[in-house]
């Protein structure tokens, strides 16, 4: 009798163990999948709110209007001339840009692409040779991807003809020269996967043109700490991105920004491992890459805006669950936390001044409907103060 009871207890115990084991396995599986999901999500989307500053001026892309309603959101291109910290709207006219705009600059010219929106499924382009006062219309027969550096513009230093690269919504990199009448595929993700097995290419993030006119293509990498940056020489593609070390050695990466100027390449990387995400800036010269210290992001934070200056100075605006934070880094330096930006800040930009990089000013842009306010940092870098207010006449309801 006792033996029977013991057998029954043992049998019940085995069943309980099996159930507990199964539950543990399920839990491990769920956590693993969640972790994998987080790693995949590490390739965070780059915000369109962005700025680029070159020696020939600064350009900012930011949304205005009723930002929660796309048909009443009007993206603006804001410009400051070299040596000036006064900003003005330079949005190209003639097309609704409710879906967003992207800009590529080179040698004082700016090429603006309109993202598909509403029933428009291709991307009109506008090219301005100077300060955005006059524009000429060009066509990208496909839809641009919603990435801040989806469009690159430059001129061939030998032949002098203009050229452009674009990342499309269908995840292709296409390019055109001359009058941009004919666009052709420049490279496919499959080609780049063959070039770098370590990167495990997951999609195109940005394009740029080297001063020589050669294309640079940035991709996300699914792991291994590899940075997906590829260059082409004579039609042959090679991986030129470095591999992150230390705590980011096995991280997945995505490129938020990619800018070239002269012999310098500046890349802002989002690196993710598990639920931990960091921002890293790479500066590339002929001597090789220098890598910034990681800037860890709070778990619920997302990058809201980025600003890159041709000398390599980079600023980010991060939106947290409560409030925002801004940080900045200069080549060779370390991340500097800035005072909390003003409420409703949508973008940061570094005006093109002759001041040394370390002391260069930084502006924050706040939007309230059709009013754009510009705030500058005090020289001590301890607080923001309003420097300019611009009222932009928005045609609400025109795209509804």
């Amino acid at each position, binding site marked *: 009798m006792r033996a029977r009871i013991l057998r029954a207890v043992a049998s019940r115990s085995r069943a309980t163990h099996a159930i507990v084991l199964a539950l543990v396995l399920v839990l491990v599986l769920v956590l693993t999948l969640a972790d994998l999901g987080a790693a995949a999500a590490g390739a965070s989307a780059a915000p369109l709110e962005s700025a680029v500053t070159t020696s020939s001026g600064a350009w900012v892309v930011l949304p205005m209007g009723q930002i929660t309603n796309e048909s009443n959101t*009007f993206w603006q291109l804001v410009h400051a001339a070299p040596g000036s910290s006064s900003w003005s709207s330079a949005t190209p*006219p003639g097309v*609704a840009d409710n879906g967003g705009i992207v800009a590529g600059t080179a040698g004082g010219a700016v090429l603006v692409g309109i993202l598909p929106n509403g029933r428009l499924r291709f991307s*009109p382009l506008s090219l301005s040779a100077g300060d955005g006062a006059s524009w000429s*219309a060009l066509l990208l027969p496909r839809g641009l991807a919603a990435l801040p550096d989806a469009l690159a513009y430059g001129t061939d230093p030998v032949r002098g003809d203009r050229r452009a690269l674009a990342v499309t919504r269908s995840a292709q990199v296409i390019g055109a020269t001359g009058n941009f009448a004919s666009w052709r595929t420049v490279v496919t993700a499959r080609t780049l996967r063959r070039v770098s097995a370590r990167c495990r290419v997951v999609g195109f993030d940005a394009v740029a043109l080297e001063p020589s006119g050669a294309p640079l293509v940035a991709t996300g990498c699914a792991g291994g700490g590899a940075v997906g940056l590829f260059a082409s020489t004579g039609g042959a593609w090679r991986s030129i991105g470095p591999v992150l070390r230390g705590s980011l050695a096995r991280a997945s990466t995505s490129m938020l920004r990619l800018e070239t100027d002269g012999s310098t390449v500046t890349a802002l990387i989002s690196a993710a491992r598990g639920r931990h995400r960091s921002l890293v800036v790479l500066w590339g010269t002929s001597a090789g890459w220098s890598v910034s210290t990681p800037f860890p992001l709070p778990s619920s934070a997302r990058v809201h805006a980025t600003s890159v200056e041709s000398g390599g100075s980079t600023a980010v605006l991060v939106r947290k669950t409560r409030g925002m934070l801004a940080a900045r880094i200069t080549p060779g330096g370390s991340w500097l936390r800035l005072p909390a930006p003003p409420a409703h800040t949508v973008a940061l930009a570094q005006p093109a001044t002759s001041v040394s990089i370390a002391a260069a000013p930084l502006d924050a842009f706040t939007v309230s409907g059709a009013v754009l306010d510009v705030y500058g940092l005090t020289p001590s870098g301890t607080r923001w103060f309003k420097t300019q207010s611009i009222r932009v*006449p928005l*045609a609400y309801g025109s*795209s*509804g």
Partner: protein
Amino acid sequence: MPGMGRSSQTGNSLIVSDFHSALFRQLLVVILIVVLCMVGFNVIRTVQYRRLKANGQTSFPKALPSLVAEPLARRFLRITFGCLWILDGLLQIQSSMPLGLPAGVVQPSASGSPAWVQHLVNIGASIWSDHPIQAAAAAVWIQLGLGVWLLVAPRGRWSRLGGAASVGWGLVVWAFGESFGGIFAPGLTLLFGAPGAVILYVVAGIVLALPERAFASPRLGRVVLGAGGAFLIGMAILQAWPGRGYWQGHGGTLSAMVQEMAKTPQPALLSSWLTSFATFDSAHGWAVNLVLVVILTTIGVLFLTGRRRFVLVGLVAFVVLSLADWVLIEDLGFFGSLGTDPNSMPPMASLLVGGYLAMVRLPATADTPSAATDLATTVAHEIPAVAAPWWERATFPYVTRTMAAVAAVAVVILGTAPMAMAAVNPNADPVVSEALDGTPNTIDAPAAPFSLTDQHGNTVSLAGLRGHVVALTFLDPVCTTDCPLIAQEFRRTDQRLGAQSSRVDFVAIVANPIYRSASFTNAFDRQENLTGIANWHYLTGSLGQLQKVWSSYGELVQIIPDGAMIAHSDLAFVIDAQGHVRAELIDDPGPTQTTASSFSSLLLSRIDQVLGS
């Protein structure tokens, strides 16, 4: 101007006047039907009289006293629901019904329901929106016809068929018009009308469609009351379910809804009652819900007992509760929005009263030999039950009621036929576009000449198109809103022209001073699948050339800065084969697929006129 979000108001004068005209025309048909039935009645009676006289009889057959009267429960349900259908039909006459029903009643009722319900409801709403006059007028006549049918046909097949017709139409309305009474949506409650008024009409229709022998025992009544009791207990459980906002006073589901109802236009007295109740519920929400749950459960249990006294107590309580709910929460059903029926409480109370009568007032009386007699066999109970020819049996009431029922059926068909035709016609009526954009201007003036470059690089001039009818419009190739829709309507018109298409050219002229090169017209054509259409010409030219054409056709084109698209007039012209403008239309496609496709019908009608002239 593109994208300015215009839409027709529900009281649009053109739609209202067309609706009234359609109702008046159909009223004349109804009168004709009545007259024909009266003539038919006279013919039948004349033939009957001659046959009787030929057989040596000098008077019409007299009605014999009925062996068994129509069961009281059946008569009650028939008359009550007949009156309700007539009331619903009269409510459908409201001027704002053609345009207001889909957006104001049908789609909001489906908003919280699952996607498949919304999809189904949208099919019905699209049919109504595409053909608002036909649909609204049809609903009037179908419901009036059903009501009259139930009232005039008390017995026999005609009467049971009326019940079956109620079931059919009721199910259509319940599914497409009431989104299944919201039973698939969260927040379902008896207080606001669950399970939908019309499903109760359907239940009543089923009861009326049963053979009369079903009323010979109390079983039918018990089934109706038992089902009602189970339903009320289910509703009590839902009412008591936590987290649905009914236990909450201030800001709770009930008080918030009643407050919203109180804000709608209605007599001040009613509004003040609603406000008072909402205030009371805000202060004592928990207690109000507790009382409701207890009452509903108790009534449900009483009905489920099937015992006469208990049921009577439950019925009285339910009638009082339903009256209070109807006045204080449902706002009499007609108020609060575009009312199409008196909401659920009157039909539910009527149905339960009918059930009670079916249980306690059996048709079998003391002088009736058998309660189980199939009363349906006494269809013409006024007729002697002998195998005599019809002229010896047809009494005055029988012929009168039969002809009245025939007239009612004809009225239902008068509504059903156009509704069915509308359902299978995918093209919206032109009147929708006219309501939005106005009636096209009919003119006869020489069209301004132009010579521009098409998407293939060929020069196209108006003179070169002489001999063909030309449909002309102005499109912005990088437009994000209207222009692609207008282009699609031109394409649809071309397809609908069929063989006549070879006699028509569809011409669009670029309406953007910046993005105007042939690369953009080509990109637009590819985007809109217009590349393979032989008679489609998308023309552009230098800015000077375009400005000249814009000016001569009254096309206003304006650059709007800072991220907005070009503003331009939505104009279309129909130019005849001799180069004369014959019609000028505004082709703003409006906010919906219906308003857009309606333009195609309007353009087609104008092109047909010019082709035929």
